[in-house]
């Protein structure tokens, strides 16, 4: 059977998907063990035991000063920022992307601006961001939004602009105005793409969140990572990163499922 036709069932997929990840973990363990054989104090590739110890302290023991369980407080703070940032970026992408994609004059006017914003690395202009937004939560959320929204806007705009001309023509013959085309033809068809775009933006969103928390923060997963980087505490960094990856993958799966449920027409096999 040709490989293109080899469609696997759920359990086969899970099994196969776990394989390379398990392999990677194994490679890590071997390398870590090797390094510890050379230098029992090695900090760079900590052994699982060290990670468990370090993490259980952060997860289950309250901090003396604040009385909080550091790990959960960090997670909550970061998820809040990420959620806000992703939410605002998604809404922006949908609205701006739709308008840019459907209306050529608006696209002509703001397309170049959006491109410009998309390619300007926001971390290079932090000083201006700070005087405009201060150093609080706003600035962190804004950094995420500025970091990911332009790419998302451009993606949605391109997707909407690529809708078959026939559909736009057809809608007009059915009496639809530009506005009606936007909300009834373009918007629903942009939704599955929007979810896909959010999925692709998850990685960058975490990057910007962590960057924002590295700049100035007193709580958050990124804060902790950059703080303990000072003494190369990889036994904290690696579990934190794994946790971030897990959270992100859960979001990814949730987005995929949502898309399949909510927009069956976009996923059904066509023929």
């Amino acid at each position, binding site marked *: 059977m040709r490989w293109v036709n080899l469609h696997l069932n759920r359990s086969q997929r899970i099994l196969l998907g776990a394989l390379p990840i398990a392999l990677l973990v194994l490679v890590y363990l071997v390398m870590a063990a090797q390094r510890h054989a050379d230098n029992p104090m090695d900090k760079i590739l900590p052994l699982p035991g060290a990670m468990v110890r370090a993490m259980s302290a952060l997860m289950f023991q309250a901090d003396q000063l604040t009385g909080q369980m550091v790990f959960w407080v960090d997670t909550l703070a970061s998820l809040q920022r990420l959620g806000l940032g992703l939410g605002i970026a998604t809404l922006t992408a949908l609205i701006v992307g739709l308008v840019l994609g459907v209306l050529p004059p608006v696209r002509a006017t703001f397309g170049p601006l959006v491109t410009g914003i998309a390619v300007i690395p926001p971390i290079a202009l932090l000083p201006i961001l*700070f005087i405009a937004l201060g*150093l609080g939560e706003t600035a962190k959320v804004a950094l995420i939004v500025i970091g990911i929204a332009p790419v998302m806007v451009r993606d949605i705009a391109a997707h909407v602009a690529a809708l078959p001309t026939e559909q736009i023509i057809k809608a007009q013959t059915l009496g639809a105005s530009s506005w009606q085309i936007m909300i009834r033809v373009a918007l629903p068809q942009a939704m599955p793409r929007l979810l896909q775009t959010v999925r692709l933006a998850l990685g960058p969103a975490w990057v910007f969140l962590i960057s924002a928390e590295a700049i*100035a923060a007193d709580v958050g997963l990124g804060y902790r990572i950059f703080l303990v980087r*000072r003494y190369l505490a990889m036994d904290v960094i690696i579990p934190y990163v794994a946790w971030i990856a897990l959270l992100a993958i859960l979001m990814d799966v949730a987005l995929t499922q949502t898309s399949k449920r909510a927009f069956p027409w976009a996923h059904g096999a066509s023929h």
Partner: protein
Amino acid sequence: SQGPDPKSEPRTEFTIGWSIYAGWMPWPYAQQSGIVKKWADKYGIEINLVQVNDYVESVNQYTAGKFDGVTVTNMDALTIPAAGGKDTTAIIIGDYSNGNDGILLKGANSLAAIKGRQAYLVELSVSHYLLARGLDKAGLKSPDVKTINTSDADIVAAFGAPDVSAAVAWNPQLSVMKAETGVNLVFSSADIPGEILDLMVVDTATLKANPNLAKALVGIWYETVALMQRQDAEGAAARAAMAKLSGATPEMFDSQLATTFLYADPQSAVAAATSPTLIETMTLVRDFSFSKGLFKGASSADDVGIGFPGGKTLGDPGRVTLRFDDSFMKLAADGKL
């Protein structure tokens, strides 16, 4: 990358990491002006100086074994490589911060006013240490101030934000922040002279196997420092070049040097290394570090041992991982290089 300990074998090629700081700028200048090559040739070795823009990363890379030596402060030498089990020897005490680190407040003139404010600083760094010492001297306790970890690259811009009113920083950032209107320097390292030391450290095993590396480094250092101390055109040119390398104007660089106490001649450096105040300083530093949890998994501050010239130790003598070695500076002082 760490094979069956290549560090203990004699080698001819070495990599030293450095990062931008007023007291460390002689290193890249020495590289550009050929002083490094001159001394390396003399000892039949090769020395690559590698600039790392991010200070912490330079120390991390040293800890990870990517560098044979690195420029570092006494506190970070203790908390990063030494606390991580990497046996490290400080072969040069280059200077101490004599005002290069400071606490800034907006709209207040005394350190006591910091109470209840949020202080922006690089947590767990010498800034944090300086803040702790300042609070101590001002009779405040650490919960009186809430610290916000701020990256050193962004602290200048952060301090420009309206909602930020207290910060701890080092130069060159400090001088820029101080220049803003309404900003006061309320405490600085000049108030705790000799406690924040800037060092050149090398891996102890590498040093044992390759004493020539240390000799060359010490030779480079004192020749370059002597050059930059000269009050003539050549000295000015050297300082101007260093200024440029650090991204500053000559005036700014000179003002940074003014708050740096350079142990310009090896004699004074040896004296500093052998003085009992070094042990006192390191006691303060290590107690602070331990209290902040920087000695991972250690049950007491004594778990990380520190060795001093003349065989004196602080902490567990069986677990000495940070050593102050004055022998090479002495060679320079005696003109035996």
